[in-house]
C-alpha cells in the first residue's frame, strides 16, 4: 500500500513556506511520514499535519509583503508573442483588425446616434414635469389623437384644475413671420406664447428678462436672431415690426434652442399670444383647435394622476357636434415627446424609439460579425498554435495562464482595431451627420465618453477572445506533441454555425435595406394626379402681396417664362384643412361628414395640372360656380355617389352643386390612401399661397429670377420666398429615405465584414489542404474539380444562411410595411435575387483563394518533403 502525505496540510505548507526551505522540509516531512505510516497510518497523518503547523513560524514563512508574482515579465512576454503572431500572419491580422475596426466604428457611430436620440430635451430643467396636452377624439369609430387645442382650454385648466399645475401655457404652433427693422426684413420661425412659456421651457436668458411677455408689445429673440438684426449691439429695448403690422419691443434674448430639442428650429422668436389673438381671424370656441397647450406640473403631482384628472375637462364644456367626438384629454410628458410620439387608438404606441432599437441592434450585430471573424480565424488556425500550447503546458504553464495569454492577444487586436475605429469615426462623422441629418459632435475630452468606449472595447475583447482562448488552451499537450493531434470531425461545426449566423445577419440586413428602398420607390412612383415639375409655391405673408396679386399675375404671364399663376389656401402637396358636417343625399346619419377642403381660385386646377375625369373645371363663364364643388374620386367614394355631377351638397348652411370630379391627388402623406377632398372657390379671401407654373420652355432658374424681380417690385416690404413643389414632395419621404440609406450602408458593411471573414477562412483552408491539393493534382484532378471541392462547403453554408434569413427577413419587413397604408409587397423574387446575390458574393470571395490554390504548381509544395 502506498500512502501519501495528507493533501491539505501539504498544500498549506507549500503555500506559506519559503521556497528555498520547502524542498528540504517537505522532503524530510514526507520521509518521516512514510516511515511512520508503515506502522500507524492514521497517527502519521495527524503527526504530519501537526508538524506542518509547527513550521508556521516567522523563519519559515515566506515574505508576503515583498511577494511579487513577477507577472509583469510574463505579461510583457505575452504581448511580445502576441505582436509577433500578428506580424507573422499579416493577412489574417489585417482581416481581423480591419473587420473589427470597421465594425466598431459603425457601432460607435450608431452609439453616438442613439445617445443623441436619447438625449432629446434632457437639457430642459423641467424635463420631468412638463407635458403637452393632447386630445383623443372618436371619429367614424376610430380614435384620433391630436396635439391641437382650443383657446378655451388654457383658462379652463387654470381655473378648474389649477392645483395640479404650476404653469399652463397656450402657444401657437410654430410658424413663419416677417420681422423687420427698417430695411432689414427677414422671415423667421417662431411661436406666439403666453407669458409663462419661457419659464416653462427653461430658456437660458442671455440678456434682459423672460418674464415680461405679459406686455402685448414685448418680444423675445433667440441669440442668433438678435445677431441677424443687431450684430454686436445690445438689442434690449429696440423695436422690431412683426408681420408689417405691430411694433414689438425686445425685452430679452435667450440662447439658441439646442439641436436635440423638440423645438429645434422653431423658436427664433417668441411673441405674446395676444398679438396673434388681436390680429383677428381666429375662432375661440371649444371646437376650434389651433393652439398647443403645455403644462408644468405642480410639485408632488404625479403625471399619470394629472393626466387622468383632466380627462373630461373638454367633454364637460362642449355640446352638440363636439360632444359626439367624445374628446378626452391626456398629458404627453416631455420625456416621451421625441421617442414616443405615435398614438394608435388613443394609446401611446412608440415612435422613433423603434429606430433607436433597430439601429442599436444593427450596431451590436455588426460588432458581433467582426467578433465572429476573429473567433473563426483564431480557431481555424489553432493547428498552428497547438504545438506552442503543448510546449507551454509541458514547461509548466497552467490553463489559466494560457487563457490569459490568448485574451491578451485578442486585447492586442481589439486595441489596434479600436485606435483605427476612432480614426474612422473622426473621419466619417461629418458624412454620417449629413446622412442622418444630425449635428453630432464628439467631445473628445469627455471622460465618460472614454469610459464608455474603453468599456465597450473591453467587452469586445471578452466577446471575441473568450471562445478562442478557452478552445486553444484546452489542448492536451501529450496529444499535440506526439503529433497524433487530430482536429475532430466536428471541430469545424461551431465555426460553420458562426459563419451561418454571420451570413444570415448580413442577408437579413440586405433584405431590410432593399425592402425599404423599394417601398420608397413604390411611393415615389405613385400616381400623384398633378404635375410636380416646374410648380413653385410662394407664401402670401403680407397684405400687400394680396393686394398686388392681380397686377403681379398679369406681369408674370406677360413675361412669357410663367405659364400660369393661381392662389390657394393650402399648397397642393400639403392640403390639410378639413371640415365636419357636410350633408348630402343618401348620407349615413352616423357619418360625421368629414371631408378635406381646398379653397382655390379659377386657375388653380390649370396651374397644378390636375385631371378632370368627369364634368368640368371652375370657370369664370359660370357665375354660379361660386357655389360649386369639385370632388376628387376618393370623395365620391366616401359619399357613395353614383352620379356625382349635379349632386347637391350642404355645408355650413349653404348649398353647393358638384360640377366636376378630379382624379385623386397625393395631397398628404405618400403612404396613406388618398383623402376625400372637395375643392371650392375661395370666397373668404383665405389665400395663403401663390402657385406658379413655370413655362417648360423657359429654364427654371430664369423663371425664378423673373419671379423674384417682379415680386420684389410689387411687394417691397415682403421677403421673397419660394419652394419647388417637388422639393416639398421629396420631404414626404426624406425620413424613410434616410433610414433606407443608413440601413443600406450598414448592410453593405455587414456583408463586407462577413466576406472578409470568409476570405480569411477560405485562404486558410486552401493553405491547410495544400499538400492534399497538390497530390490530387498530380493524380489528375482538374482545376475546376479542385475549385468545386474547395468552394462546396462555403456554398452550402451560404445557402443554409439564406434559407434561414429569408423567412426572418420577410417576417420582419412585412411587419414594417404594415404601418403604411400605401405599401409595396415583398415578392419571392426579391428574396431569391438577394439569395443569389449572396451566393455570388460568397463564390467570388472563396473562388479567389480556391482558384489560386488549384492553379499552383504541385511540385512547389511536394518537393520539400
Amino acid at each position: 500500500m502506498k500512502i501519501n502525505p495528507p493533501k491539505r496540510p501539504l498544500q498549506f505548507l507549500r503555500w506559506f513556506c519559503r521556497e528555498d526551505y520547502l524542498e528540504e522540509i517537505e522532503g524530510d516531512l514526507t520521509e518521516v511520514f512514510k516511515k511512520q505510516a508503515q506502522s500507524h497510518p492514521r497517527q502519521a497523518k495527524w503527526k504530519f499535519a501537526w508538524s506542518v503547523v509547527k513550521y508556521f513560524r516567522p523563519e519559515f514563512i515566506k515574505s508576503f509583503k515583498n511577494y511579487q508574482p513577477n507577472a509583469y515579465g510574463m505579461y510583457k512576454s505575452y504581448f511580445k508573442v502576441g505582436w509577433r503572431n500578428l506580424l507573422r500572419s499579416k493577412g489574417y491580422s489585417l482581416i481581423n483588425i480591419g473587420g473589427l475596426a470597421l465594425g466598431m466604428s459603425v457601432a460607435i457611430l450608431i452609439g453616438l446616434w442613439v445617445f443623441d436620440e436619447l438625449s432629446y430635451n434632457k437639457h430642459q430643467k423641467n424635463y420631468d414635469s412638463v407635458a403637452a396636452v393632447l386630445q383623443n377624439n372618436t371619429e367614424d369609430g376610430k380614435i384620433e389623437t391630436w396635439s391641437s387645442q382650443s383657446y378655451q382650454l388654457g383658462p379652463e385648466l387654470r381655473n378648474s384644475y389649477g392645483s395640479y399645475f404650476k404653469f399652463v401655457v397656450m402657444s401657437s404652433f410654430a410658424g413663419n413671420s416677417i420681422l423687420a427693422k427698417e430695411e432689414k426684413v427677414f422671415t423667421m420661425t417662431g411661436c406666439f406664447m403666453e407669458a409663462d412659456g419661457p419659464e416653462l421651457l427653461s430658456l437660458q436668458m442671455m440678456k434682459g428678462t423672460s418674464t415680461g411677455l405679459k406686455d402685448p408689445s414685448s418680444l423675445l429673440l433667440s441669440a442668433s436672431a438678435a445677431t441677424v438684426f443687431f450684430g454686436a449691439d445690445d438689442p434690449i429695448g429696440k423695436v422690431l415690426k412683426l408681420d408689417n403690422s405691430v411694433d414689438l419691443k425686445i425685452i430679452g434674448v435667450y440662447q439658441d434652442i439646442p439641436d436635440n430639442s423638440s423645438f429645434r428650429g422653431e423658436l427664433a422668436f417668441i411673441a405674446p399670444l395676444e398679438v396673434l389673438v388681436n390680429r383677428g381671424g381666429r375662432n375661440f370656441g371649444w371646437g376650434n383647435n389651433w393652439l398647443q397647450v403645455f403644462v408644468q406640473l405642480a410639485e408632488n403631482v404625479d403625471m399619470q394622476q394629472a393626466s387622468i384628472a383632466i380627462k373630461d375637462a373638454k367633454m364637460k364644456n362642449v355640446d352638440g357636434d363636439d360632444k359626439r367626438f367624445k374628446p378626452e384629454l391626456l398629458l404627453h410628458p416631455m420625456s416621451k415627446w421625441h421617442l414616443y410620439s405615435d398614438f394608435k387608438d388613443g394609446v401611446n404606441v412608440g415612435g422613433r424609439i423603434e429606430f433607436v432599437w433597430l439601429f442599436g441592434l444593427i450596431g451590436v450585430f455588426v460588432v458581433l460579425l467582426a467578433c465572429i471573424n476573429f473567433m473563426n480565424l483564431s480557431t481555424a488556425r489553432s493547428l498552428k498554435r497547438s504545438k506552442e500550447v503543448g510546449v507551454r503546458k509541458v514547461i509548466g504553464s497552467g490553463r489559466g495562464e494560457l487563457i490569459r495569454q490568448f485574451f491578451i492577444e485578442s486585447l492586442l487586436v481589439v486595441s489596434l482595431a479600436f485606435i483605427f475605429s476612432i480614426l474612422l469615426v473622426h473621419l466619417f462623422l461629418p458624412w454620417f451627420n449629413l446622412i442622418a441629418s444630425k449635428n453630432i459632435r464628439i467631445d473628445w475630452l469627455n471622460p465618460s465618453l472614454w469610459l464608455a468606449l474603453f468599456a465597450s472595447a473591453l467587452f469586445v475583447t471578452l466577446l471575441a477572445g473568450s471562445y478562442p482562448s478557452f478552445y486553444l488552451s484546452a489542448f492536451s499537450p501529450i496529444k499535440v506533441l506526439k503529433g497524433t493531434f487530430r482536429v475532430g470531425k466536428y471541430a469545424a461545426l461551431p465555426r460553420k454555425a458562426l459563419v451561418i449566423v454571420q451570413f444570415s445577419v448580413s442577408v437579413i440586413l440586405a433584405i431590410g435595406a432593399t425592402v425599404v428602398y423599394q417601398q420608397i420607390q413604390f411611393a415615389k412612383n405613385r400616381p400623384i394626379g398633378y404635375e410636380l415639375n416646374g410648380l413653385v409655391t410662394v407664401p402670401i405673408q403680407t397684405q400687400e402681396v394680396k393686394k398686388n396679386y392681380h397686377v403681379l399675375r398679369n406681369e408674370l404671364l406677360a413675361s412669357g417664362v410663367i405659364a400660369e399663376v393661381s392662389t390657394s389656401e393650402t399648397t397642393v402637396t400639403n392640403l390639410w384643412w378639413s371640415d365636419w358636417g357636410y350633408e348630402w343625399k343618401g348620407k349615413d346619419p352616423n357619418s360625421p361628414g368629414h371631408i378635406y377642403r381646398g379653397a382655390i381660385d379659377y386657375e388653380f386646377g390649370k396651374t397644378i395640372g390636375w385631371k378632370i375625369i368627369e364634368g368640368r373645371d371652375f370657370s369664370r363663364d359660370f357665375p354660379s360656380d361660386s357655389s360649386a364643388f369639385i370632388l376628387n374620386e376618393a370623395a365620391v367614394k366616401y359619399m357613395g355617389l353614383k352620379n356625382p355631377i349635379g349632386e347637391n351638397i350642404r355645408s355650413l348652411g349653404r348649398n353647393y352643386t358638384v360640377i366636376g370630379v378630379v382624379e385623386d391627388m397625393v395631397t398628404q402623406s405618400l403612404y396613406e390612401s388618398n383623402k376625400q377632398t372637395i375643392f371650392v372657390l375661395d370666397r373668404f379671401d383665405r389665400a395663403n399661397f401663390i402657385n406658379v407654373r413655370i413655362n417648360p420652355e423657359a429654364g427654371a432658374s430664369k423663371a425664378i429670377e423673373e419671379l423674384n424681380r417682379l415680386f420684389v417690385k410689387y411687394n417691397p416690404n415682403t421677403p421673397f420666398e419660394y419652394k419647388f413643389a417637388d422639393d416639398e414632395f421629396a420631404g414626404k419621404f426624406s425620413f424613410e429615405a434616410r433610414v433606407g440609406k443608413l440601413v443600406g450602408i450598414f448592410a453593405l458593411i455587414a456583408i463586407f465584414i462577413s466576406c472578409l471573414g470568409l476570405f480569411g477562412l477560405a485562404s486558410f483552408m486552401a493553405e491547410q489542404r495544400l499538400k492534399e491539393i497538390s497530390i490530387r493534382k498530380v493524380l489528375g484532378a482538374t482545376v475546376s474539380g479542385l475549385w468545386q471541392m474547395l468552394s462546396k462547403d462555403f456554398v452550402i453554408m451560404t445557402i443554409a444562411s439564406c434559407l434561414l434569413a429569408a423567412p426572418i427577413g420577410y417576417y420582419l419587413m412585412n411587419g414594417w410595411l404594415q404601418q403604411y397604408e400605401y405599401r409595396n409587397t415583398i415578392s419571392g423574387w426579391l428574396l431569391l435575387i438577394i439569395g443569389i446575390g449572396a451566393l455570388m458574393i460568397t463564390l467570388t470571395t472563396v473562388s479567389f483563394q480556391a482558384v489560386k490554390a488549384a492553379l499552383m504548381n504541385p511540385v512547389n509544395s511536394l518537393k520539400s518533403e
Partner: protein
Amino acid sequence: MTQQSLGEFEELVLLMVAALHDEAYGVAILEGLEEKLKKKVNISAVHVALKRIEDKGFVKSRFGGITEDRGGRRKKFYVITALGKKILDNQYALRTSIYQQIPKISFG
C-alpha cells in the same frame, strides 16, 4: 567569537551533524538524536536548529539526490564548518575546565 551563542538543542544538533559527517540531513539527524536522547523529537525543531546554526555559519549545506520515499524532494545535507568545529571545541573545553574545578567531595 564570544558573542556567538549556541543553545543547548542547537549544540546537540551541531554535534550530531559533526558525528554523522556528510550523511547528515534532517531525518538522519532526527533519528540520531531520538536514539541518543531516548525521546521523541519533532522534525520541525531539528529544522529550526539547523537553520539557526547555518545562519551563524557553523554548518554549510548542499542538496543531494532524490530518493523514492521523499516524494520527489531532494535531501539537504549538512557539513560542519571549521568555525562550527571550533565552537564545539570551545564549548567542550569550557565545560571540561569548569568540570575539573569541581572539588572532589564525596557525593555519596
